[in-house]
């Protein structure tokens, strides 16, 4: 059927087989085996287009393999393996299956050579991932999941509309580099933008990620947004607008990350913040910048995973991830604290850790191409990341003022997953050549120059100093049991209020009308309500006579139109 075996099929087969296995350990084992086999398939996949299938007269290219696709597919496989290892204790078939489907769809989307198969997998990630949110099982989670699903599916629908227009304009469905200009490309851009967390389109991210289960958040953090980064790099590399969008993403999320109380939400904002770096890189569009975006995506998947794993472990042991309720946990969770520090060092771009060798590619590219404002904002973003994530997370959870909580160290499989992920962070930092070899373009870049090391150390140290002094002086925003508004306020609070006010007004008007005894108007409104309203069961039991009247009317219209011609 296919000339190569599509890696996504391994995940699909795994997802079909997994629920049938009776034993939880067997299921967890199978779920670990799937990304290993999938990763091996990706590693050995020949370059070029493969697995072309025909659907309803369209040729769909299931696999278009080049270095840009393979690096994302590989990091997705690795992330799937690590997060499934972290989730070894999960007994819930739904979560296990959804994870496989989610990771499989993301990998399928990365390899999709045309817009239709991209759309299919795009929606696949949306639908599979929402189960990780619903798996929390509370009513709040259900509503958050609905919001998340609505936005994600909308993104897919927009993508499909864009694809249809694109097909009409160009006669091709191939997913290649495109230039903004037509309605089609704008729609596709918008669809990717939603998943990518563009400013004002990003409210789903911080709304939904912290709501998922302990393991679900780790899994969510790896795929959807990085898939969007891949799609941008594939379709819109070098689009100048993206530089400003990326700058906006960095700026708009920084404050939220500073003042948010839920540590998993802090990490969601921080993730969104880091996406801004990649988007700027894609906007610059040079080989160096694209390498930077791809490598930073890889590094970001890993360090974000280890941080979320550590916070997840804390949640798993204490039942909360709120900064206001935590602190001093290093006493009983030393290893988790250590791994969190590795993640922090990576996101702070300390030398010898992964962020150092990837972020600098983007910053250098911005300098080379004379995008000084973007460069300055990214520099500011780096310094801010030191404060709001790299220091705040370990401080709030592990090292800050004691909360009195004395939980056990995280379970062994979690420690193993965190340790492996942390090891990857260090490995990339120490030996960046291995990662550079996988990047889309040849890399001729030296990270470890004296200048670079010193400047980065200065940046981190001074940002840390500001944090420490401000915290000591009591000027740093306090972690309080409160929530912080974001743009999702518009549809969570404003819109319902407006609709409520409107319907109240309507009700008042209705009362006015009813009291005025305007019988004919009342009759019309009543009938309108009944034809479509929930009580239409009553109204729609039409007497035969009126049915016949309708027939006569239609016959009359038909006869008139027929004769008129």
């Amino acid at each position, binding site marked *: 059927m296919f000339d190569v075996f599509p890696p996504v099929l391994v995940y699909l087969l795994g997802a079909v087989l997994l629920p049938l296995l009776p034993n939880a350990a067997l299921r967890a084992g199978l779920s670990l085996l799937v990304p290993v086999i999938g990763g091996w398939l990706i590693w050995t996949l020949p370059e070029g287009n493969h697995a072309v299938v025909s659907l309803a007269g369209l040729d769909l290219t299931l696999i278009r393999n080049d270095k840009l696709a393979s690096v994302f597919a590989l990091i997705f496989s690795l992330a799937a393996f690590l997060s499934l290892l972290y989730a070894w204790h999960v007994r819930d078939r739904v979560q296990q299956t959804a994870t496989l489907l989610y990771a499989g769809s993301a990998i399928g989307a990365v390899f999709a050579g045309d817009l239709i198969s991209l759309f299919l997998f795009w929606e696949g990630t949306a639908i599979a991932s929402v189960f990780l949110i619903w798996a929390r099982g509370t009513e709040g989670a259900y509503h958050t999941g609905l919001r998340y699903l609505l936005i994600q599916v909308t993104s897919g629908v927009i993508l499909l509309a864009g694809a249809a227009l694109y097909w009409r304009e160009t006669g091709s469905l191939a997913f290649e580099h495109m230039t903004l200009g037509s309605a089609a490309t704008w729609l596709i851009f918008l669809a990717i933008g939603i998943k990518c967390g563009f400013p004002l389109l990003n409210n789903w991210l911080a709304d939904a990620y912290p709501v998922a289960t302990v393991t679900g958040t780790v899994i969510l953090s790896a795929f959807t947004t990085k898939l969007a980064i891949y799609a941008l790099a594939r379709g819109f590399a070098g689009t100048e607008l993206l530089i400003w969008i990326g700058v906006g993403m960095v700026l708009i999320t920084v404050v939220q990350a500073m003042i948010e109380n839920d540590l998993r939400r802090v990490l969601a904002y921080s993730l969104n913040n880091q996406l801004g770096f990649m988007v700027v890189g894609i906007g610059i569009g040079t080989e160096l910048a694209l390498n930077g975006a791809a490598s930073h995506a890889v590094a970001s998947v890993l360090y974000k995973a280890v941080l979320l794993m550590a916070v997840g472990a804390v949640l798993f042991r204490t039942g909360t991830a709120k900064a206001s309720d935590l602190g001093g946990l290093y006493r009983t969770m030393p290893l988790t604290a250590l791994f969190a520090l590795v993640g922090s060092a990576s996101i702070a771009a300390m030398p010898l850790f992964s962020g150092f060798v990837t972020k600098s590619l983007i910053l250098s590219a911005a300098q080379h191409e004379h995008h000084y404002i973007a460069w300055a904002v990214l520099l500011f973003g780096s310094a801010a990341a030191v404060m709001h994530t790299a220091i705040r997370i370990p401080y709030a959870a592990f090292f800050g003022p004691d909360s009195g909580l004395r939980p056990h160290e995280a379970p062994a499989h979690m420690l193993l997953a965190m340790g492996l992920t942390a090891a990857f962070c260090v490995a990339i930092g120490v030996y960046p050549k291995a990662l550079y070899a996988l990047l889309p373009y040849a890399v001729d870049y030296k990270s470890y120059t004296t200048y670079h090391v010193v400047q980065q150390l200065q940046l981190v140290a001074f940002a840390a100093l500001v944090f420490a002094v401000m915290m000591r002086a009591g000027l740093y925003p306090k972690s309080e049991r409160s929530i912080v508004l974001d743009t999702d306020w518009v549809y969570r609070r404003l819109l319902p209020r407006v609709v409520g006010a409107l319907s109240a007004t309507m009700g008042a008007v209705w009362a006015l009308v009813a009291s005025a005894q305007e019988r004919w108007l009342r009759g019309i409104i009543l009938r309108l309500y009944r034809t479509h309203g929930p009580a239409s*069961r009553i109204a729609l039991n039409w*007497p*035969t006579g009126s049915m*016949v009247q309708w027939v*006569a009317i239609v016959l009359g219209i038909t006869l008139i139109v027929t004769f008129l011609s």
Partner: protein
Amino acid sequence: MTAEFDLPFILGHVNYWLFIVLMMTGLYIVVAKGNLVKKIVGLNIFQTAVFMLYISVGKVSGGTAPIFPTDMNVDPNVVYSNPLPHVLILTAIVVGIATTSLGLALIVRIREQFGTIEEEGIYQIERDMAAEEYRLHSELMSERR
């Protein structure tokens, strides 16, 4: 074709006028009468109008009954009416009778179950049933929320 209202045109198409009057009468009864049996009667009149339309179409002026002589020597000068519409309408009459009897049988059952054959009364009962179902449903659902 002249569309002027001249007498020969009106008289020449008298079968169509009758057909239209009968058809409209039948349809009117179906629409206006609430009694189920009367509706069936209206339906019958409506169908009869169609039968008449067909039969009058088959009539050829001066034509005789379309029966072949037994010796099969057909006189080319004799004009026969078209037998086909009659045959068709025989089938349609059978269908009409079947419809009528089925309709009446249904009315008997409706009378047993609803206790009335007036449309108004039946719809009142049905509306009450639907309202009761709706009330039960919304109560249970709101309780659950």
